[in-house]
């Protein structure tokens, strides 16, 4: 079994029994999408909500919720997953600092979550569980075999969603 890190603005697709993990999600959102029957799953580490806001620049597509989740789903289908069986889980989207309203990035976690949700809805993929918001960082581990997403907090408390 191999375990792969999925860093900011990256995505990866693996088959059982491999695992995927992202360390220290703050306002970032980790979206795990998998086909339970084929035991194929992918994880994306979303940094920003929408690629449409930054059309001019030449960006990595996996940095954004909208373009990144589309790419991840395509990659899963290419690897043999069925689009109709895909399920999603997500975690992250915290607001780490209590800043004044003048700082727009304070809302970035919330906006990431909203954009992930919308993108998944447009693709017809159900979110079967989630652990989002709050003001604490999260480390997530995605087990493709079972579809379990383990969420670990800074105080080492753990939950499986």
């Amino acid at each position, binding site marked *: 079994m191999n375990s792969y890190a999925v860093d900011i603005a990256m995505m990866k697709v693996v088959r059982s029994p491999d695992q995927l993990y992202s*360390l*220290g*999600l703050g306002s970032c959102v980790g979206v795990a999408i998998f086909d339970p029957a084929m035991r194929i799953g992918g994880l994306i580490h979303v940094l920003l909500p929408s690629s449409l806001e930054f059309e001019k620049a030449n960006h990595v597509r996996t940095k954004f919720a909208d373009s990144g989740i589309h790419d991840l789903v395509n990659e899963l289908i290419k690897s043999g997953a069925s689009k109709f069986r895909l399920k999603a889980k997500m975690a992250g989207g*915290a607001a*780490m*600092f209590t800043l004044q309203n*003048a700082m727009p990035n304070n809302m970035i976690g919330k906006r990431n979550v909203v954009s992930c949700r919308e993108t998944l809805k447009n693709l017809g993929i159900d979110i079967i569980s989630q652990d989002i918001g709050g003001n604490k960082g999260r480390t997530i581990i995605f087990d493709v075999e079972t579809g379990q997403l383990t969420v670990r907090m800074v105080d080492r408390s753990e939950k499986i969603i």
Partner: protein
Amino acid sequence: MNTNPDRIGGIQKDILREIANIGAGHAATALSALLERPIEQSVPDIVFVPLAEIPNMLGGADKVVVAGLLGITGDVFGYLIMILDFEQANRIISMVRDKPIQNSEVSGFHKFSVMDKSALSETVNIMGGSYLTAIAEFTGLKVYPSIPCLCMDMVGAVLNIAAAEAGKTGDYAMFFQSELFNNKERIIGNMFFVPDEESCSKILESLGCNCNE
């Protein structure tokens, strides 16, 4: 201007390093006055970090740290972030509050009293304020700090805010990095000034440097 490293020229980098030098110098002076002991600063650096590497730049994304942050508004938009490990945070608390150093441990977060956290916040406030005032005076730009925010969490999660800002304009983040020492001991290990791209251009332009050259 683009914050990808190959798009920033030598002269621009030198000017930005000087900005970091002036800011950190003033922060060191303020800290020295607060703690009543000499504080030296390292030669500051301008570092370019690919987005994916940001969480790993300070010893692993899930390392637990104490972070102080000031939001910056006005002509310049961005953040000033100080990242301390628990030992450094405890040392500052002991110096500011004039009491013995507590045992530090990873889960020590909850042992910081309200006064301890307040002492840390105030240190961040005073140093950050000095850093930013120095930049404002040097450039003639308006630089307004927010109230200080304190957070104890995984370093990757803490630095997300800087990654999100940098990610809007490129695939690299530019950090103005400084370290402060007292008797060779690191007091503030990592102090980062993270302006957004537009602000960086404004800073350079205010000093007569054309960014498009």
